[in-house]
Structures are given as structure tokens and as C-alpha cells.
């Protein structure tokens, strides 16, 4: 059975560009996923990441509508997702710094409104609404070479920013009051972290879709955390786990023609629970 699945998958990768793109998209997105996912886990902002992920539907929906109805091509739907995610990160960040006690309520509001805007624009767009499903649950087989370049560019950006500021980012996650006393502008770094999260979420949306992003962003990092004693180890292990999960998800879903995003997430979730149980002392 596995051998059959494997052969079919390898044949497809050899023969089809879209499979190569899909494979590459999964591996490239894993880099940011491991690095930023580690920060999301240690700073405990997965709920915020979930909110940002869902608001990307607004960007995707609006740009898709403009493309179809007004022939607007200046930005791709993924570019729209980047804008929506950064905007959501800015709003949520501001709220969580200034209205501490109502933070989760406001995140919930931003989350739902982002989705609602997306749904409204998608329904205004003439044609099939299958796009909605592929935004929500991902369609890695639809990744274009333009998307790949965008994913690669965002990867580079994330890596450069983290390489430059990893000291401050770690200190802010560990003990932000102490970091502030050391002259670190903790609010700026909090926004920076949310910005990185937003960019990473967009990368992962193209792999597993809006609804499933949160699992892929946090679970590989959480698994890595069980083995790593330092941040860079956690990031490296999380990246490897994420890359193997997206690749296996793609491989296992290909022959039976199942949705790759959902299979990837089922694998991710199972791996997480098994690891957590085995590592429990």
C-alpha cells in the first residue's frame, strides 16, 4: 500500500511541474514555519496567529474580486493576503498592548470580521466559488511559480530579520520587563514579532489553507520544544519536522486524491499527540 502510494507520488513529482512546485512550496514554507512558529509557541501568541490567519481571507477575497470584476492585476491575491495579515497584526498588536483585559474579545472580533469581508467579496465575484474552499483549506497543487518566488522572498526576509534581532526577540519573549530595563524597545519588538507571524501565516495559507494554518505553525514548534534546550535547536528541529510533514502530507494524499492540506494537518496533529505522550514523564 505505502509502496504504491510512494511510487505514484514519485512518478507524479517526476512528471508534473505542479507536483514539484507543491513539494518546493512545502519545504520553503517550513523554514519560516520552524523559525517563527518557535517564537509563537514560546511567546504564547497562537490565538493571535489564528486571528491573523483568518483575516487573510479579506485580502484574498478583495484582490480576487478586483481581478475578476475590474481586471486589476497590480497585486496577486497572495499579495492581498500579505496586506490583510500585516494590517490585522497591527490592529491586534495595538489592542493587546493598550486594552489588555479585553484582548481576546477584540482578537475574536478582528478574526470574524476579516473572514466576513472575505466571504462578502467572494460572493460578489461572479463565477465558481470553489476558490473559497481552496483559500480555506489550501490547495498546494495550485501553487504557481510566482507564488514560489513570493514564498522564497518572504523566507529570506524572515530569516534576515530574525538573524539581526534574535537577541532582543528572545529576551522579550523570556522576560519583557527585564528587556525593557536593558533599553530594548519591547513594544517595537512585539510588533515586529507579530509582523513576522503575519508573513509566515501567509506562506502557510498557500500550503494548508487559512483554517488549518494554526496547527502547522504551532505544532511542529511545540514538538521541537520537547527535544530542544535552546532556541536555535528548537527552530532547526521544527523546520525539519514541518518539512517532513508537508512532504508526507503531499505524498500520502496524492494517489487517493485526498486534500493535501487536510492530510498534512491530520499527520501533524497525530505526530504531536504521539510525541507528547511519549515524552511525558
Amino acid at each position, binding site marked *: 500500500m505505502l509502496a504504491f502510494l510512494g511510487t505514484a507520488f514519485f512518478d507524479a513529482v517526476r512528471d508534473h511541474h505542479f507536483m514539484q512546485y507543491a513539494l518546493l512550496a512545502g519545504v520553503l514554507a517550513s523554514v519560516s514555519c520552524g523559525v517563527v512558529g*518557535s517564537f509563537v509557541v*514560546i511567546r*504564547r501568541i497562537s490565538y493571535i496567529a489564528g486571528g491573523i490567519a483568518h483575516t487573510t481571507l479579506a485580502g484574498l477575497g478583495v484582490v480576487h474580486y478586483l481581478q475578476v470584476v475590474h481586471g486589476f492585476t497590480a497585486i496577486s491575491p497572495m499579495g492581498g493576503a500579505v496586506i490583510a495579515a500585516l494590517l490585522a497584526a497591527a490592529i491586534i498588536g495595538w489592542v493587546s498592548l493598550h486594552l489588555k483585559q479585553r484582548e481576546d474579545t477584540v482578537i475574536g472580533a478582528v478574526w470574524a470580521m476579516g473572514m466576513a469581508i472575505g466571504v462578502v467579496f467572494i460572493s460578489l465575484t461572479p463565477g465558481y466559488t470553489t476558490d473559497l474552499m481552496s483559500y480555506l483549506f489550501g490547495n498546494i497543487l495550485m501553487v504557481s511559480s510566482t507564488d514560489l518566488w513570493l514564498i522564497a522572498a518572504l523566507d529570506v526576509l524572515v530569516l534576515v530579520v530574525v*538573524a*539581526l*534581532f*534574535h*537577541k*532582543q526577540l*528572545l*529576551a522579550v519573549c*523570556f*522576560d519583557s*520587563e*527585564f*528587556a*525593557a*530595563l*536593558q*533599553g*530594548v524597545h519591547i513594544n517595537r519588538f512585539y510588533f515586529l514579532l507579530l509582523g513576522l507571524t503575519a508573513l509566515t501565516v501567509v506562506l502557510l495559507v498557500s500550503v494548508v489553507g487559512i483554517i488549518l494554518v494554526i496547527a502547522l505553525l504551532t505544532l511542529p514548534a511545540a514538538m521541537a*520544544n*520537547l527535544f*530542544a*534546550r*535552546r*532556541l536555535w*535547536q*528548537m527552530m532547526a528541529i521544527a523546520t525539519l519536522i514541518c518539512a517532513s510533514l508537508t512532504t508526507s502530507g503531499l505524498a500520502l494524499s496524492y494517489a487517493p486524491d485526498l486534500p493535501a492540506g487536510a492530510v498534512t494537518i491530520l499527520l501533524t496533529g497525530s505526530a504531536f499527540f504521539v510525541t507528547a505522550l511519549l515524552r511525558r514523564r
Partner: protein
Amino acid sequence: MTTETKTATSIIACHDLAFGYENKPLLQKVNIAIPQGDFVCVVGPNGSGKTTLLKLALGLLQPTSGQIEVFGKAPRHARGRIGYVPQHPRLDPLFPVSALDVTLMGRLGRAPSLLSWRGKDQERARQALDEVGLGDRMDHHFAALSGGQKQRVLIARALAGDPELLLLDEPTAGLDAHVEEGFYRLLEELNKRLTIVLVSHDLGFVSGFVKSVICVGRDVLVHPTSEITGEIIADLYGSDMRLVRHDHRCSEEGHQC
């Protein structure tokens, strides 16, 4: 260490300092001066404003009225000369940092902000860990260290920034008595070159090396350790306070020893 001779000015000076949350005054008319080289213990019941006093000295809170100066400046401009050891942080037991990683965070104010730590920062952090007796634990997972060791790492983190004043908030909370003893010996050693201000809710403080005590209650008063009597303590805490007896004399009435 700086070699310039310092006049006997105060390291921390409060002048009619007051602080309160909303309309609830917490500290009023605080006038204290802490000289260089002092080892001060700030005591008082829970909620009396001890930690608030430390946060005012760090510039994390602003006084409602009056003044507080640290090294003759507004506290936020003196932060580079202050080492702060916070209350044991509630920490994620999986947080992926080593003892050295945590200590290095004390160099943030001195290291260049971009990219990695310099050799010099690493060197200074290692020395600080050596100084608190954890030279052989540098690469250990911070969360896996014992409570006392974690507290020492937090002191090393403060020392790594080469401070002249060390502020500690309840450093011995939750530590075993024998661990606490070693901890105080470390502070006594550090006091040879640093001014130390330590906040504590217990009175285990009056162990030899504390030089003066600030009692935070209705009034904030400074006493040299030798003058601490049971009366002062009973006045501060109420009469049912149990004391760990050290070298002070208790008065007949007020509390049991």
C-alpha cells in the same frame, strides 16, 4: 570598577516621595537616602508597597508626587548602572534557553543591537555565572535547574551588565533554608563592591550582613540593623508576627520570639 573617588552621596535618594494607584495612596512622604556600599533590606507586610518602591527606583513607575533619584539622576537614566533581579518569574518549564542564554540577556544594554553576541559579552556572562557558582552549569537547560540555581542565574544576569547597584525583589521566596543561607553569603560577597537593596517579606534578613533596614508600613522608615527592636517589627506587622530570631533583641511585649 571605576577608580574615581566618589563623595559620600546617596545612591538612591527619595524626597517626599508619594505613590498611589488611582485614589488609593500606597506610599506617602518617603524620605530615605541609601549610601554607597550599603546593604539594605526592605521589609513590610504584603501589599505595603515594597515592590512598588523598587519599581519606582527602576523608573518602571512614576511617583505621584515628590522625587526619587538614583545616582543623582531620574531613575530611567540610571538603568545602565542598576542590576535588577526580579521576583522568580512564572516560567514556562519548556522555555528553550540555557543558563548562559539567560545570563547574556543582562548584556543587552551594552552589546551592539544587531546580530549575535560578541566574544566579550560571552566572556562577561561566563564570569558572572562563575561568580554565582554556576560556572559548570552554563549549558544546562535553565528550566531544569533547581529554584536556588535559577535565582543565582538571575543574579548572574544582573551582574553581567556590570551594575553598581543591585536591586533584588523577594529573591529567597520559595527557597529552602540552607539554600537561602548560601544565597545570603553570595550577596555578602557581592556587597564588597556593590550597593545592595533587597526586598523581603520575611524577616530572615537580620542576619549579620544586612546593614540597614527600611520598614515599609504606614510610614517608611530607615533603621540601622542594630536598632531593630521587636517593637518596631511588631508595630510594622501587628502583634501576631512570628519572627526568625537572629541578632536583635525582642521587647517583652508585642510578639513572641
